[in-house]
């Protein structure tokens, strides 16, 4: 079904139609109420009576051979049930290993990451023994008694030294420490080489941590009688986790149930398989007792998947009029000691490469991406993955091109942004940009700011009496696109072997008419229950309150990828809509049976928000009145639930309705509740081929990849003496297609922009050159607090993607993709500097150093 309100054949909305939906009253969703009032049930709330609690003995050395592990004293400590070493586990547990099918020029080396190291440790915090005891206190007491003898080995502390000739090897099979390499070229080089303007910029994004409020953890219990493992985890990806556990434990996935309770934020780290999870599962099997591990914040900082740690070196060329002639870039991604499961270490180099050309016309592109092993904790996904590197680097390059061509930052962007009439456009990064109006988004953001007002404030600050030298304002902008809901074709191209890349939904209408929806993309607080309820409610024409959404439990939810990479509303939502379409067919079949008609003589219609099936035999004279939905598959046009924020509950009935107004002579109608009853009674005979009951399953591989787009502008104040930077104002103009739930979209954007401000100004997981981890607590790793995040003004445009039935585009990561660039560019603008390289975060100390190199800005601009 295509949503009539968003027929893509109609022109997308343009600048003058940019529409702001002020903080909709739907803000507090029912899903959030129990969470906000303390009635959520998180991992630590799962309390099996006899559970053993785990503590991990971790290596203090970044690289060492394990000579001996003496656990005798620990085993005799009070409350200890078991202490298990790597050597003991090695026979029964396979290492964590992410496979890839690297195509083209790409080269990949998988690594074996033993959940408990037996011979060699490769990062500070690597597990060398597991203690299971009556409570966590005892487990920690005993873990201090495990005596490990190490032989320290030389350390590779960062990616640059890792690829230097003669560097220590992290893995024997990777002599150059390169675990992944890819190289892409598109377009012709000559224009790039002859272009008169040449600009360069190098930027290092810090190693950061997703830092969900709830850290990770697992509760495992093994039923020896049935040979089944019950595994709760604070995970984003129950099915992938189950597959991963099955691989490591050597038991069939069908014998494992993975359930995610309420999850207090995911952001990416919770989609990787943790060695602790494998160890917990293995111990549960081994000991036949429930085993519980709740990661504390120090463990989380040290050993929950870090991300980024990427340096991009780039060079762009442009014509004299500021038009981009080409882009050349190389990324160096420090992925730590192992390639993590399921995505593998190619994640950042691949996604940074996709993102660098951005929403611009880039006729020539050459990219090399490297993932390099070092003696640090492995990296994994974090909201945005390598994509924020795109705007971080490219936006600065574009501004520099503008300066070289004598163009205002807005004008140089206008000249280079792809226009709607150029879409769909195959970007040299490999994505096909489908929809949206990039110049209009920039215009929308600038208009909302308003840009002229900001410029005036900036001018005043520059020549303000007395403080002109000290307090400066800067304006930063960031235009970008985000490929979302990536389908099987994308993961096939990326070569990532452990992501199914589709999602599924099961819909069931019970005899009383209530609807249950089981979806493979769980929620970590994004409001999926609410959004899916709305999709089902509007798709089937049932009250949203009558829909129960069940997520995150492999025992009941159908197979799928899970929640990451802005895929839930595209892929999970697509599955829900696809299942709803099948459900309508089933309802039609039941109605037809009731009326003893052919299925083609009935049709599903939503009237006043209520779904029902009506007979059309009396009117079926022209054929035009026959709804194709009943005969075609899920992609046929059906009654159209309006998804638009303003269209809320209007029952747009699709093209069939006009031909068959309610109450027309001869029309009979069965409401969903009546059909639900009929489908479940033995009294209604059903023709062959019509199944009783009302339960449908749909697996969904998005037919194309919707690419959402946005423009961010930031006004930042910098104190040149202290180096303090404060984001004063922030505007986002975004287009994620038809919005299902404005409150959810706005919440996602605001949270992600806050995280992006953190990446730009505050956050960094630090290791010293010797490989020691230095970000032990939240006093070392600074996340943005409420005072660091301004109000964020949001402008929505809704251009549906032509690639999917719903037109919905994902947006979960959008905020963090654009924000670091907007903030960094604003700081550079405030200081009037164009450094050749930049290391983030822009700490006050770094800002003071930049200010010292600053030129005096033109006070009139």
């Amino acid at each position, binding site marked *: 079904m295509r949503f009539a309100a968003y027929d893509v054949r109609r022109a997308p909305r343009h600048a003058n139609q940019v529409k702001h939906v002020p903080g909709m009253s739907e803000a507090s969703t029912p899903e959030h109420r129990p969470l906000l009032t303390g009635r959520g049930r998180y991992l630590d709330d799962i309390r099996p009576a006899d559970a053993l609690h785990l503590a991990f003995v971790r290596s203090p050395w970044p690289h060492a051979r394990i000579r001996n592990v003496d656990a005798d004293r620990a085993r005799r400590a009070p409350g200890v049930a078991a202490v298990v070493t790597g050597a003991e586990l090695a026979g029964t547990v396979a290492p964590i290993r992410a496979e890839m099918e690297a195509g083209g020029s790409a080269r990949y080396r998988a690594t074996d990451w033993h959940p408990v190291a037996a011979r060699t440790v490769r990062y500070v915090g690597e597990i060398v023994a597991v203690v299971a005891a009556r409570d*966590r*206190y005892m487990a*920690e*007491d005993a873990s*201090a008694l495990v005596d490990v003898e190490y032989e320290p080995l030389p350390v590779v502390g960062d990616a640059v030294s890792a690829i230097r000739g003669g560097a220590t090897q992290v893995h024997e099979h990777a002599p150059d420490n390169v675990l992944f390499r890819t190289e892409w070229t598109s377009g012709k080089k000559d224009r790039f080489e002859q272009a008169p303007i040449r600009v360069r910029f190098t930027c290092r994004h810090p190693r950061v941590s997703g830092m969900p409020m709830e850290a990770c953890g697992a509760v495992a219990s093994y039923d020896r009688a049935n040979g089944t493992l019950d595994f709760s985890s604070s995970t984003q990806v129950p099915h992938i986790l189950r597959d991963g556990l099955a691989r490591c434990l050597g038991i069939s996935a069908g014998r494992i149930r993975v359930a995610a309770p309420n999850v207090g934020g995911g952001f990416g780290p919770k989609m990787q398989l943790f060695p602790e999870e494998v160890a917990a599962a293995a111990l549960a099997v081994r000991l036949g007792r429930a085993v519980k591990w709740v990661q*504390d*914040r*120090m*463990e989380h900082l040290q050993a929950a998947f870090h991300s980024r740690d990427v340096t991009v070196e780039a060079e762009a060329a442009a014509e004299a009029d500021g038009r981009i002639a080409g882009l050349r870039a190389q990324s160096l991604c420090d992925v730590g000691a192992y390639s993590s499961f399921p995505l593998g270490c190619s994640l950042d180099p691949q996604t940074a490469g996709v993102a660098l050309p951005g929403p611009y016309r880039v006729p020539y592109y050459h990219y090399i991406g490297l993932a390099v092993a070092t003696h640090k904790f492995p990296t994994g996904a974090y909201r945005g993955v390598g994509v924020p590197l795109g705007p971080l680097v490219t936006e600065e390059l574009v501004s520099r091109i503008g300066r070289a061509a004598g163009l205002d930052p807005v004008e140089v962007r206008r000249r280079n942004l792809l226009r709607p009439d150029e879409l769909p456009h195959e970007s040299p990064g490999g994505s096909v940009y489908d929809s949206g109006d990039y110049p209009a988004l920039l215009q929308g953001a600038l208009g909302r700011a308003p840009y002229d007002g900001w410029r005036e404030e900036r001018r005043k600050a520059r020549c303000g009496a007395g403080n002109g030298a000290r307090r400066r304002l800067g304006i930063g902008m960031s235009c970008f696109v985000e490929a979302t809901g990536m389908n099987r074709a994308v993961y096939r191209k990326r070569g990532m072997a452990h992501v199914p890349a589709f999602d599924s939904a099961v819909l069931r209408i019970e005899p009383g008419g209530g609807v249950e929806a089981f979806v493979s993309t769980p929620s970590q607080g994004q409001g999926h229950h609410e959004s899916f309820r709305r999709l089902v409610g509007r798709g089937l024409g049932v009250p949203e309150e009558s829909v129960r959404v069940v997520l995150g439990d492999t025992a009941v939810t159908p197979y799928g990828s899970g929640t990451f990479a802005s895929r839930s509303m595209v892929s999970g939502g697509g599955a829900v809509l696809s299942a709803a379409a099948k459900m309508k067919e089933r309802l039609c079949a039941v109605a037809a049976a009731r009326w003893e008609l052919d299925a083609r003589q009935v049709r599903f219609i939503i009237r006043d928000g209520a779904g029902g099936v009506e007979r059309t035999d009396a009117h079926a004279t022209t054929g035009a009145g026959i709804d194709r939905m009943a005969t075609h598959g899920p992609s046929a046009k059906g009654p159209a639930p309006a998804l638009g924020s303003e269209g809320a509950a209007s029952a747009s009935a699709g093209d069939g309705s006009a031909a068959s107004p309610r109450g027309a002579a001869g029309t009979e109608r069965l409401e969903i509740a009546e059909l639900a009853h009929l489908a479940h009674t033995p009294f209604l005979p059903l023709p062959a081929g019509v199944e009783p009951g009302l339960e449908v399953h749909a697996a969904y591989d998005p037919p194309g990849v919707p690419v959402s787009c946005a423009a961010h502008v930031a006004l930042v104040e910098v104190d040149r*003496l*202290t*180096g*303090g930077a404060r984001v004063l104002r922030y505007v986002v103009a975004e287009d994620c297609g038809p919005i299902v739930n404005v409150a959810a979209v706005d919440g996602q954007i605001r949270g992600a922009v806050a995280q992006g401000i953190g990446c730009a100004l*505050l956050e960094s997981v*630090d290791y010293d050159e010797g490989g020691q981890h*230095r*970000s*032990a*607590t939240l*006093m*070392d790793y*600074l996340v*943005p*607090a409420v*005072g*660091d995040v301004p109000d964020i003004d949001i402008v929505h445009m809704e251009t549906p993607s032509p690639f999917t039935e719903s037109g919905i585009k994902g947006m979960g990561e959008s905020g963090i993709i654009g924000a670091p660039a907007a903030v960094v560019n604003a700081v550079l603008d405030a200081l009037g500097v164009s450094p050749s390289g930049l290391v983030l975060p822009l*700490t*006050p*100390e770094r800002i*003071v150093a930049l200010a010292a190199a600053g030129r005096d800005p033109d006070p009139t601009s």
Partner: protein
Amino acid sequence: MKPAPFAYRDPDSVDEVLALLAEHGDDAKLLAGGQSLGPMLNMRVVSPEFIVDLNRVKALSRRGTSADGGFAIGALVRQAELEDDPAFAVAQPLAAAALPWIAHRPIRNRGTVAGSLVHADPAAEWGGIILALDARLAIRRAGAPPREVEAENFFTGILETAVEAEDLLAEIRLPPWPDGARWGFREFARRRGDFALAGVACRFEVDGAGRCRSVRIGLVGVGDTAVRARLAESVLEGEPPGAELFAAAAAAVGKEVEPLDDGHASAAYRRHLAEVVVADALAEAWEQDGRDEG
């Protein structure tokens, strides 16, 4: 992040507290607001055998004007109590102005002034405050007469003070506020509520001849302990205040401090910041135009 096992006592009199400290000394830790001790226990940075909880000792919660007209702060007085006390703001404007910069309100709700001073984080605001105010610290020990330590002798080394294992810091005594004294408080932290990378509490008077007198500059965050900027004080003392003099004082601060390099900032940057906050605080004090707060 679970503490190692410990025994717990919660006496309700000062004498019992002192007796327990005398008995267990090094093996015991006093628990006041727990805002520093709690995390240290959880991280197993400390694992005392005994925790002696002060929270039932009512006598330690007193605060108010003392006989000499100064302000006395008992060991259990929470930072937030002072923050909310209008009488404190009148009696001690400098300390009152600094309070909102200490951590966050929930931490100030429980955290005590005494706990902060004994914990002696070199960036803790109270270190600079007691130095700027010439405070005296009343210390008790079983079997010994109560003793008073001058602020400038209180900090003895990194995270070390004149309060020894058997001691209770019973009271913080702020002398009466001098009429017409001017003061400034400035700090710079990466985020509001974080420990300052550099901070300063300063106070001076201006005599009839228009010259700076009784100059006190207490710096935090720029060394092992809170320190007085004696060189800068001497630059100011006896000179007529003004922008140029303040700049000279700030430059003197840059010469005399010995900041540490750490994960948050380099020594050079902290030194630079010390100069900036001192110049700002002195200017702030001067702009007060001799408001009479005493």
